[in-house]
Structures are given as structure tokens and as C-alpha cells.
């Protein structure tokens, strides 16, 4: 069992909901983002998603786009992100998931003329050694992920599958069949960012997906408060909060970011058997 599987199993047997916090690596500075990841665990996060900045993040709204620009300006690279993971691992066993776009992974260790997924495999090997438990690649849908699934499986790193309110039953079947670690349940059409969302649609999808898999489900996109986290957690095993926290961190509102994490933790525990 990986750290992630252990953590999610423990939460489940305690009747609690998991809480994933996404933090862009390198924003507002590389050191601050490290500090934020460490403190986020103390404030109540169960899993840290390390946001890996890309120049053209298709699945992200303005907050994560802007934080990525800052992080890239601060010189963040995959190598530095692995360094960050090793530093976290030196003092914590919190599950770490790297969330980034495929082109960065494919370029890892680029030395010219490599086959498409060589860089990706190299990254997965190094990420595993650095204490990373899984990856989320928002621009790789199930149809394109076969080779990456095989690579991740070979090295015992989770590759996250997605479902959305629009996922058809046939696709859900194949998605669930290859799910590993957790399934990212995208609450709504569109991109990341805090907004008003009707969570009943994804909640219904989760019940459908449960017929095909026992892999835990985490709902993300749009969650910015304790109240919305509770709505998103109705049928899921966990919630994911990104933009709301990243916005505060990017604006150097470190304490507010930690307060928000505490608020969401408290709301989840109050409503779901903490």
C-alpha cells in the first residue's frame, strides 16, 4: 500500500472525509511554497498536491495561471520540485501528488532525440525516489494515457483518472477499471477556480462510478469555503481545494491561507464524523 492508499483507508475507517490541498510550487517563492506545504498539513490537509507550473495550463483558471507565471519567473523546474518533495519527505509522511501538464514531464531530463515517453518514465522513477506517491496530468484524458498508465504501474506511482458530470457510462467503465489511488471527480465543466457550482451533478456521478470501482473519489474544482467543501463531500471520500488557497498564498496572505484550510477541515469534520 502506498502512503496515499493508507491515508485514504484510515480516513474511511474513521468515517472522515479526506482533504487534499493544492499548492503551486514556487509561489510566491520556492521557500514559501515549501513552508506552505508543511504548514498545510498542520492546518488539516491530508494530502498535498504539488502544483507543477506550465507556461500554458489549459485546465486552469486565472488564479493558478497567474501563480504559475510567478513560479516560472522564480525559476521553478521539475528538478527543484523533486528537491522540494525530498525536503518535505525528510519531515513528513503526508501523501504527495504531483499535478502538472504532460509536456513538462515529457521534457524531463531532455537530452535530445528521446522517444515520447522516456522523459515521463525518468520523471516517475525520480519522483518515486523523492517521495511522490502519484501524479495528476490534467491534459491527458483516459484515451491518451495507456503508455503512462503502464509506466506508472511499473514504478508503483498512482496515475489519476478523471470523471466529470458529462462522462458517459461507457467511458466511466473504462476510467474506473484503470483507476489507481483516487479518482479526480471534476465538479463542473470548465477550468479550476472558485465559483458557484451545483454539486448535485457530480455527486450523482459518484454514485454511478461506485458501481464500477472501490477506488476513493475526490471532488475538485470550485471549492472555496467550508460550506462548499461540505456540499462537495456528500458522496465523495475527499475534497480538493486549490485556487482558493493558492490565491491567498500568491498574495502573501500566508495566515489567511492556513485559516482557510483550518476552516474547511473543521467544517468537514463537524459534518462527517470527525
Amino acid at each position, binding site marked *: 500500500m502506498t502512503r496515499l492508499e493508507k491515508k485514504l483507508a484510515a480516513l474511511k475507517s474513521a468515517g472522515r472525509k479526506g482533504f487534499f490541498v493544492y499548492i503551486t510550487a514556487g509561489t510566491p517563492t520556492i521557500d514559501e511554497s515549501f513552508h506552505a506545504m508543511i504548514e498545510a498539513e498542520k492546518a488539516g490537509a491530508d494530502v498535498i498536491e504539488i502544483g507543477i507550473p*506550465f507556461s*500554458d495550463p489549459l485546465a486552469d483558471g486565472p488564479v493558478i495561471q497567474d501563480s504559475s*507565471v510567478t513560479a516560472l519567473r522564480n525559476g521553478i523546474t521539475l528538478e527543484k520540485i523533486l528537491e522540494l518533495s525530498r525536503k518535505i519527505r525528510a519531515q513528513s509522511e503526508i501523501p504527495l501528488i504531483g499535478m502538472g501538464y504532460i*509536456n513538462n514531464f515529457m521534457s524531463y531530463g*531532455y537530452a535530445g532525440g528521446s522517444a515520447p515517453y522516456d522523459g515521463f518514465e525518468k520523471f516517475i522513477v525520480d519522483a518515486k525516489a523523492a517521495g511522490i506517491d502519484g501524479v495528476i496530468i490534467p*491534459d491527458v484524458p483516459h484515451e491518451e494515457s495507456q503508455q503512462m498508465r503502464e509506466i506508472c504501474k511499473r514504478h508503483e506511482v498512482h496515475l489519476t483518472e478523471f470523471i466529470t458530470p458529462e*462522462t*458517459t457510462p461507457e467511458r466511466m467503465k473504462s476510467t474506473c477499471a484503470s483507476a489507481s489511488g483516487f479518482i479526480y471527480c471534476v465538479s463542473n465543466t470548465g477550468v479550476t477556480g472558485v465559483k458557484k457550482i451545483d454539486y448535485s451533478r457530480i455527486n450523482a456521478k459518484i454514485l454511478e462510478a461506485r458501481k464500477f470501482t472501490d477506488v476513493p473519489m475526490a471532488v475538485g474544482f470550485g471549492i472555496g469555503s467550508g460550506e462548499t467543501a461540505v456540499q462537495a463531500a456528500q458522496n465523495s471520500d475527499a475534497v480538493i481545494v486549490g485556487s482558493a488557497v493558492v490565491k491567498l498564498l500568491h498574495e502573501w496572505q500566508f495566515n489567511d491561507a492556513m485559516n482557510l484550510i483550518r476552516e474547511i477541515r473543521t467544517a468537514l469534520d463537524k459534518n462527517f464524523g470527525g
Partner: protein
Amino acid sequence: MNKRFGNYGGQYVPETVMPALLELEAAYSQYKDDAKFLAEFESYLREYAGRPTLLYFAENLTAHYGRAKIYLKREDLLHTGAHKINNALGQALLAKKMGKKKVIAETGAGQHGVATATVAALFGLDCKIFMGVEDIERQKLNVFRMNLLGAEVIPVSSGTGTLKDATSEAIRHWSTNITDTYYIIGSVVGPAPYPEIVRDFQKCIGIELRAQAEKTFGGLPNYIVACVGGGSNSMGIFYEFRADSGVKKIGVEAGGRGEATGDNAKTLSGAGRPGILHGAYSYLLQTPQGQVVEAYSISAGLDYPGVGPEHSYFKDTGAVEYVSVTDAEALDAFKLLAKTEGIIPALESSHALAYLDKFMANTSAEENVVVCLSGRGDKDVQTVAKILGEAVN
């Protein structure tokens, strides 16, 4: 439906976009061979856009080089002034068949934006055009044209505020509004099935050329030269001849400020290597870390860090040779065509014309060269005037 050209292409998009792509795939499979749909498309090309376009013998330009005969495929004579209208008409028609009431598009210089706004007006579709703030500033006239045509121009300030960011933002908007919105992509780029769809709506250029060449000089051209940004006019003219090894096909990219600096758009002919941008695996200008590099060219239509995946395939198989010319060389060709033939070419097309300088000496009088004159240059006159003015001062 084949989603790849060799290794290239694919559908590297967020899960939220997949339902829309699958819907598009299904619709296009249904209509691509549908006689009624194709007849309707051809009728709009003929009656509205002005096809077939002329294959014009450029006698004075031929005399200038004194070698092979030079012909121009006059896409510049189409309605809205460039080949972009072919694709915009085809996709708007497809959108209508799919029951979509809203269309969106990205634009750099504004040509594809204007073409999309035009067909949206024609078909009564609600239209939003995503355009980088930098480009809006540089292309105010085209913004005004789009507004006149009833389209809403949405400024994009993320990233560098240019074409690649406008494209990302269009995809983001699409992923948020997939049920009622059709995304009319402007070139042979993006996730499958777009590169195939755009190619199919542009391949009329090459199909016409084959018949015209037969009639005009009794055979196939020896050379076809076209500019490559995303690569839609070049794919449109090359595709018909992809298996004709006797026809040498040359794609000309923007060399920008020249070899010494990194300011160029030489995705295939320069420092690009395969990577993933906007949903497709294809050659890409990027850093060693895989961050996308901003392209540069005097011509806004060539100023894109990626390229259509089928071009990447053609590069690797050797079906097409990809080369580049600089801003300065393109400007010279722009002026030369205006003076010798009385035709002001688009700066994009001027890149194809500029390459004549590099290879005409190797041709003989019995050979025939066809240059795709993809667009007219009226839109570039201000840019050129400004540059020439600076050069004088």
C-alpha cells in the same frame, strides 16, 4: 477515425473537453462523406467565397528570375482576403448541422477572427473571438471589422497576450460551455479531429490546382511553395500532392530576425522538437524544461510556437521540405510582387515568395513553380509602412 499522423496528433485535452471532442468526431464522421453536406459546402465556397481561385501566370516575376515559370494560386482573391474563409465556412456549416447556436474562435492578427465573424453573420450564429491584448493593440482595424460583423472580441491578457494564449483561452471557454458552443479552430492544429477537419476544408486548394495545372501546363507542378505558421494554407495545397514524389513541396516558416537571435517561428526548420501544446503532439518551440516559447515573426499569422501535427509527420517522412526566410527577406518579396505584378501579398504569403530567391536559380525554363498566395496584403500595409519609415529614419 484516425487520431494520429504517425506519432503526431492525439487528444491531449482536459477530461472536461473530451465529451465535446467525441461529439465532434461523431458528427464529422457522419458528414465528411455526406454528399449533401459536401454539395452545400461547395456551393458556399463557389457562391459566397469565390472559388475556384485563379492560377495566375506571373509573367513579370518569371522574367525577374529568368528560370522556371512561376504561377500564383490566388487565395488572396477570396472573400475576406485569404484562404481562412474556406475552413470557417466548412466548420460553421458543421456547427449548424450539429445544432450549435454559438461559435467561438481564436485569432492572432485577426484574419481567422474576421473569417469566423463573417460566416457567423452569414449563418446567424452568436460569435465570440478570443484575441490577445497585445494583438488587439496591434490590429485595431480588424477588431473593428469583427465588431461590425456582429462578433464580440474578448481580450485575453493571460500569459503573453498573443495567439497561443488566445487559443488556450478559447479552449478554456469551450470546456466551460461545451453543450451549446462550437469552437472553430483556425488552423490544422489542436486535438483530433481538428487537424483532419481543417485539412479537409482546405484541401480544395490543391484539388483545384491539380486540374488547373493539367489545363495550363499539361502536367503536375515541379514545385509547390507555401508559408507555414499553424500550416493550414500549406496543408490545403500540399495534401492533394502528398503521394506525388515528382512534385517538390516546400513549406516556408518565419525566420524572424535571423539566425543570430532566438526571435523566430521556425518550429519545423529550426529549434523545435516534439512536444504537446493545445491538445496535439507535434513539433514545438520550447525550453529544455518543456515550457512553451513565444514565437516571433513580422507576420502575425506565422507567429505561433506550434505547428499542425500532420506537418510534423510530413517533416519526418520527408514528404515536405521545411525551410525559413527572415523578416527582411519577406519584406523584400512583399515589395517585389507589388512592383512586378501589381499584387500586394500578405506578409505571411510573402515568406513563400521570398523563398523563390533561394531556389529559382536551380530551376530550368521547362519547369513550373506554384506559390500559394494565401492572402492579400492590405491588412499589412500599415505594419510595412511603419517598418519602412523606421528604416528611412
